[in-house]
């Protein structure tokens, strides 16, 4: 069998009586309030929306019956407000604290972006209303597209993909379409071991065999190994740059040359573009397609896991295969191409893209300006290197030398302490930090990937560094219990993921349904 658990920690919590303070009568702890599900507090007939009585006209719904009970709970507005306010208070967020989640770029979300996206001229327009009535929207999309092309140096951009992974698929289909157009059947895609999981998933979905390229000891693609794997059956390479170890692929120009020489195309995962904005244009590296996660580089809010937007920039070779919809200039105005024409490979998504994300990203770009964008990527890299330099003597950096926008450590420094990467991360929760990304990338044992972003002031970095130094020393001093029982002060202690996966409960059910199921 193939095992890929990569030294992860336990998924069942250890009960320990040392944690937890005295229980209160309510189960609440000060401002931390236990909150029942909406289904447990609703009353039949109550509503928080006053609507007029519908006229008593006959239903015209063909042979379909009107439905009877749905089973939704009824609440009043004060109850709903209180419910979600209490839920919100159980969440960690950038607004509340330092959130150094590597590869996710949890930077500040400017509130002007939110206000602009909500202007009725953007938020209250329909994707199918006449083109003459949405010229400003098309101009905004065109304007964002222009800046994405300027920053990347590429020939074209497909704006419609709904998120990074969707953009990846868009770029890879464009590659498949270009190969098909030249009558070239190729079956293999090269993906470095350190790649984000979406890369092999995307390539495999398109029917390609995924061939992993090993990494060198310094965390980059092994150029010799890649050369050996290149051949006439290789369709593309999918490479993240800066890579998932937070390092710039120094051989990237050579990689691109070799890939093109072999007749293959170069997909770059642009997840880490935020590190190099204004300093490096992907076109100058020889890339054919790259998605841009607007929520990372241009700080559209992460929103608890989406929505995202993943425009894909394309080289001259791939531009003809871009999907619908596309905005084009037409004299003084703009047109929307809504039907895939000519060599276009099709459509990724209904309508014209994630407009609400476009307006936020455009606002971000205009606010930062040429100097601000460059300063942002510079500060992101400076902050990461400051953390790396300040922790390298007590933690174990995975690689030598400077990093880009994120600093990667392995769990070597925890060896023999009885503390795992997961335990270390959970202890950070008690200190009021969101942990770094753990156990990714897979190529580093017990990985800890710290991405401070440019939003963090030096005072905040210094306190974070002091905290991690303290925790490292505490682990080495033999205080393993402090870690294995953590968190003790978060809204919940460690959760039993094993029980959740063995008997999945994915929805609430009324008591009588559960009773029936038990019988």
């Amino acid at each position, binding site marked *: 069998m193939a*095992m890929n*658990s990569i030294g992860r920690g*336990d*998924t069942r919590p250890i009960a320990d009586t040392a944690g937890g303070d005295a229980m209160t009568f309510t189960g609440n702890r000060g401002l931390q309030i236990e909150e029942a599900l909406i289904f447990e507090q609703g009353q039949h007939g109550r509503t928080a929306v006053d609507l007029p009585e519908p006229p008593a006209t006959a239903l015209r719904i063909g042979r379909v019956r009107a439905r009877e009970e749905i089973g939704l709970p009824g609440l009043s507005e004060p109850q709903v407000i209180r419910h979600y306010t209490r839920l919100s208070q159980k969440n960690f967020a950038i607004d509340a604290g330092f959130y150094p989640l590597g590869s996710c770029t949890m930077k500040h979300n400017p509130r002007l972006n939110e206000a602009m996206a909500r202007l009725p001229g953007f938020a209250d327009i329909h994707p199918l209303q006449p083109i003459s009535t949405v010229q400003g929207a098309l101009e905004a999309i065109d304007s964002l597209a222009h800046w994405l092309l300027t920053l990347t140096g590429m020939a074209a951009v497909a704006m419609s993909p709904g998120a990074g992974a969707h953009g990846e698929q868009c770029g890879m289909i464009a590659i498949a379409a270009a190969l098909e157009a030249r009558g070239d059947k190729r079956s293999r895609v090269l993906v470095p071991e350190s790649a984000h999981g979406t890369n092999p998933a995307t390539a495999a979905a398109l029917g390609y065999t995924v061939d992993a390229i090993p990494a060198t000891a310094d965390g980059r693609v092994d150029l010799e190994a890649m050369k050996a794997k290149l051949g006439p059956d290789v369709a593309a390479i999918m490479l993240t740059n800066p890579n998932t170890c937070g390092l710039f692929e120094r051989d990237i120009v050579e990689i691109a040359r070799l890939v093109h020489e072999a007749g293959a195309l170069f997909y770059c995962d642009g997840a880490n573009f935020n590190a190099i904005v204004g300093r490096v244009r992907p076109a100058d590296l020889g890339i054919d397609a790259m998605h841009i996660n607007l929520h990372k580089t241009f700080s559209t809010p992460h929103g608890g896991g989406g929505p995202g937007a993943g425009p894909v920039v394309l080289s001259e070779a791939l531009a003809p295969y871009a999907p619908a919809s596309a905005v084009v200039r037409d004299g003084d105005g703009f047109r929307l191409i809504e039907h895939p024409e000519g060599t276009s490979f099709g459509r990724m998504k209904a309508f014209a893209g994630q407009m609400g994300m476009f307006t936020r990203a455009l606002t971000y770009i205009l606010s930062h300006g040429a100097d601000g964008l460059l300063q942002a990527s510079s500060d992101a890299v400076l902050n990461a290197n400051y953390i790396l330099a300040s922790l390298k003597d007590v933690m174990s950096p995975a690689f030598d030398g400077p990093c880009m926008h994120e600093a990667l450590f392995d769990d070597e420094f925890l060896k023999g302490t009885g503390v795992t990467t997961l335990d270390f991360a959970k202890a950070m929760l008690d200190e009021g930090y969101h942990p770094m990304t753990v156990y990714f990338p897979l190529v580093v044992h017990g990985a800890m990937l710290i991405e401070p972003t440019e939003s963090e002031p030096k005072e905040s970095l210094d306190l974070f560094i002091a905290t991690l130094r303290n925790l490292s020393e505490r682990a080495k001093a033999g205080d393993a219990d402090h870690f294995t029982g953590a968190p003790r002060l978060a809204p919940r202690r460690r959760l039993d993921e*094993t029980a959740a*996966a063995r008997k999945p409960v994915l929805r609430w059910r009324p008591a009588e349904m559960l009773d029936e199921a038990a019988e």
Partner: protein
Amino acid sequence: MANIKFTKDHEWIRIEGETATVGITDYAQQQLGDVVFVELPDVGKALERGKDAAVVESVKAASEVFAPVDGEVTEINKLLQDQPDTVNSDPQGEGWFFKVKLADIAQLDALMNETEYNNMIAEHG
């Protein structure tokens, strides 16, 4: 115990005449941690040596179980559908995965005996 063989990928196979029972080793279940789900092949499926035969999932990992030999699946362990933890508690007994009708008995010669397997994990573990 002479009729139990092992693969380098941590499957075991117990031979009983023309059929054989397949599961994963105690070492494998320890490495995986708490098993939460097992996906078994359909009865009647023709398995090919070294190719995917089943999937075993812990919370954080999903691992392919490879067929140790060529053969047709004759029975699967239905107990694992409701109690996947049996793989943890009794990997080489009640936690078996499936039975196959051997296509080529000579293929067994390529597999390890218990001592050889134990030596292998002692070296790598």
